[in-house]
């Protein structure tokens, strides 16, 4: 590596050669840019200072060390993360549900889906009196049952799924805290949104249940605890 003394000698020799090439009386018409002049002044000043403090000149103009490169790279990564809005993901395990909460929403997954029934083999109903609600079936197939009950502005959404279909469900928990609640002996994921909408999600071991409503949570919990499995009636011919 070239040290400052050898650099000084090399520069001196170059300048002498350059001066020899020019006529003393020749007027140079080239106009140097402001940036060039500024850099030239800075280098000359640094060199003059280095004559008194050569260690400082070496420290200022030497190459960046490996440690400094690692530090700069780490800073660049942190800055990129902040600028792109990369956030923290908080993971909850509630009953048989894994919920990955981010700032804008939560991704919910039914765990252990491979050992659960792949189709709906059981039928569930609500025994709570909802006779003053209008019932609308939105889905009734081998993977999901979904009934919507409405009464003016009040609503109750009751659904249950095979676990395989409940993967990466996007749950709107933005600005909501996720909690848990006991429903029929199962741990249910619970959150409230905008002080109006309540959501309960739980795993009964075979299927994933969801109950959404804008009613008071105490009523929703009552409704949830009246969910029962309908027994199949088998006719035996004699």
């Amino acid at each position, binding site marked *: 590596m070239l040290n400052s003394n050898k650099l000084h000698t090399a520069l001196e020799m170059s300048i002498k050669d350059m001066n020899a090439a020019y006529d003393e009386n020749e007027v140079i018409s080239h106009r140097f840019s402001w940036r060039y002049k500024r850099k030239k002044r800075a280098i000359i000043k640094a060199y003059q200072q280095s004559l008194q403090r050569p260690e400082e000149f070496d420290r200022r103009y030497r190459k960046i060390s490996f440690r*400094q490169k690692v*530090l700069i790279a780490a*800073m660049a990564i*942190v*800055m990129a993360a*902040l*600028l792109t*809005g990369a956030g923290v993901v908080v993971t909850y395990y509630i009953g048989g549900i894994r919920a990955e909460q981010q*700032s*804008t*929403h939560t991704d919910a*997954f039914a765990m252990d889906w491979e050992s659960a029934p*792949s189709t709906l083999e059981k039928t569930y109903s609500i025994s709570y009196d909802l006779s003053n609600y209008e019932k609308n079936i*939105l*889905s009734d*197939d081998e*993977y*999901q049952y*979904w009934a*919507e009950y409405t009464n003016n*502005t009040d*609503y109750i*959404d009751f*659904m249950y799924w*095979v676990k*395989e*279909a*409940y*993967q*990466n*469900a*996007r*749950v*709107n928990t*933005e600005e909501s805290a996720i909690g848990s609640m006991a429903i029929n002996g199962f741990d249910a994921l619970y959150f409230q*949104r*905008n002080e*109006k*909408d309540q*959501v309960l999600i739980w795993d009964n071991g075979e299927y994933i249940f*969801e109950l*959404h409503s*804008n009613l008071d949570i105490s009523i929703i919990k009552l409704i949830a605890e009246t969910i029962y499995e309908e027994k199949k009636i088998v006719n035996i011919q004699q």
Partner: protein
Amino acid sequence: MKKFVTAFLIGTMSIASFTVDAGAYAKEHNVVVVQDVGQLTKTSSLMLKSNEAVCKSTCSRSSEESTSITAVQTLEKKTSWYYQSVSGATWSTTVNTQSLSMRNSKTGLSSGTYRLKTVFTVKYKNGKSETVTVYSAERTVK
């Protein structure tokens, strides 16, 4: 080096605070951002039966009244580098209700790994709207 670190920290904190303010501005001015405005849950599910893919997408209601919900399902197959749309496996539906449930299927799938992409666009009575993309878990046809 110390001056550089100090300048970096000050610069980063200044830029980070600007980013937060930008988010607040977007929220106040009904700018569509990738966050869930109203609907409570959205799902995109892919189930395989033999070599048939069953594609189910749902978008459930909330107290925030919607005027329309549009869902576009696209079945995608994984290649070495990216996901490619499967030919003849794109479906779209629009409803003027508070919730949406949609089911489609595609048969004759070749072996490989698939996923279902669903793009939900919901418009609300208060003038807000949201567009959210949800991906299903991957499933493999052997």
